[in-house]
């Protein structure tokens, strides 16, 4: 089949070409094309500052139950995970990023790791009827979930803004990675400052919101990230 005379590329009509040229060069002002790494560094700094701020505010109100050193190690580990998520999502220019399946696998791995972390951190576990019948448990879970979502959405919005219109290839997948990165800022900061160590509270109020943030990023990715 390689020897077949494949159709030649066709030139657009000259009138159309002139119109497009006029449209694209009449208001041509110099812009700075940022290197992906520069944007990546900006993204890491921005989400890091937000994460540290949320953590500091949270610890002022509810000091960590474990030793402060251990809590700091946890914060650093999750900070590194956030950096890795941003690196996987944006470390290379679009068209040269890791395979789709690898990126989805990475998202799944981080989500599973966070749920595992929450399960290990849980000290008690009520039965579902008990959990549902205790008013303050449900209320506390909703409050944590809403806060986690608000903080996550704040971080995700900043990341979407920094990377807007950059990915025509897989904007939904990149949006999901952005949702995960933003969601981690909110969910981890809240998890490290929340005094409740009941399993259902952690899974629903903290873990589920991270999954919701991935879904939100996926659904918004095409609108925000595709040119």
């Amino acid at each position, binding site marked *: 089949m390689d020897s077949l005379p494949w159709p*030649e*590329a066709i030139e657009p009509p000259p009138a159309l070409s002139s119109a497009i040229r006029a449209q694209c060069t009449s208001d041509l002002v110099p*812009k700075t094309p940022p*290197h992906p790494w520069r944007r990546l560094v900006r993204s890491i700094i921005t989400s890091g500052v937000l994460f540290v701020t949320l953590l500091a505010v949270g610890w002022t109100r509810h000091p960590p139950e474990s030793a402060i050193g251990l809590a700091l190690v946890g914060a650093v580990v999750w900070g590194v995970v956030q950096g890795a998520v941003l690196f996987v999502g944006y470390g290379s*220019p679009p*068209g040269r990023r890791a395979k789709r399946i690898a990126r989805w696998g990475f998202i799944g791995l981080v989500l599973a790791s966070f749920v595992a972390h929450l399960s290990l951190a849980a000290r008690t576990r009520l039965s579902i009827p008990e959990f549902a019948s205790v008013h303050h448990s449900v209320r506390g879970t909703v409050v944590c979930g809403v806060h986690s979502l608000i903080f996550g959405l704040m971080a995700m919005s900043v990341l979407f803004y920094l990377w*807007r219109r950059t990915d025509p290839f897989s904007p939904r997948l990149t949006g999901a990675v952005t949702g995960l990165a933003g969601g981690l800022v909110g969910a981890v900061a809240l998890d490290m400052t929340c005094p409740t160590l009941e399993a259902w509270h952690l899974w629903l109020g903290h873990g589920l919101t991270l999954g919701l943030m991935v879904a939100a990023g996926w659904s918004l990715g095409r609108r925000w990230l595709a040119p």
Partner: protein
Amino acid sequence: MTEAPLEEIMIAYVLGDAQAFDDVYRRVSPQLFSYLLRLTRNRERAEDLLQITFTKLHRARDSYLMGAPLLPWVIAIARRAFLDERRAARSRTEDLSSDGKVPEPRPAQDADAGDLQEAVERALETLPEAYREAIQLTKVAGLSLVEAAEVLDTTPTAVKLRVHRGYNLLRGQLQGFARGPQ
């Protein structure tokens, strides 16, 4: 003399060089227009989409990340514009011809009429969209399997499979041509 890589010229365009836009347009538009013509099978729509694509490229030029392959980048923008337009058209109404009737499908033409290039062109038109697009991107636009996979939002293996199946169909269509006119 070898030409500068498209990606470098694109950066010059982002930095405000109008001549660089001309170079980008000269090198990208034929492949893009051919792709759009086969995608839409309608010259007017292809022209509209070409203009929309370059408008989007112009607006998003400062979002072009250094190192991203330019031709696949532009084709991916065009493909998304086409899909958006088709989705919007479907939600509005069926496509009607100028006299208000539903257009008739193109009649299949004999593969053994005319020269081989015309036969290939006609045979390509009869292929299912997925196969035609995969062959168009790899054979006419000259993208690699990986680049075509990025544009089509799928895996290189899937593109390879589509191209292979498209070849099989083409082979069937062109058998009459190989035997020559009866």
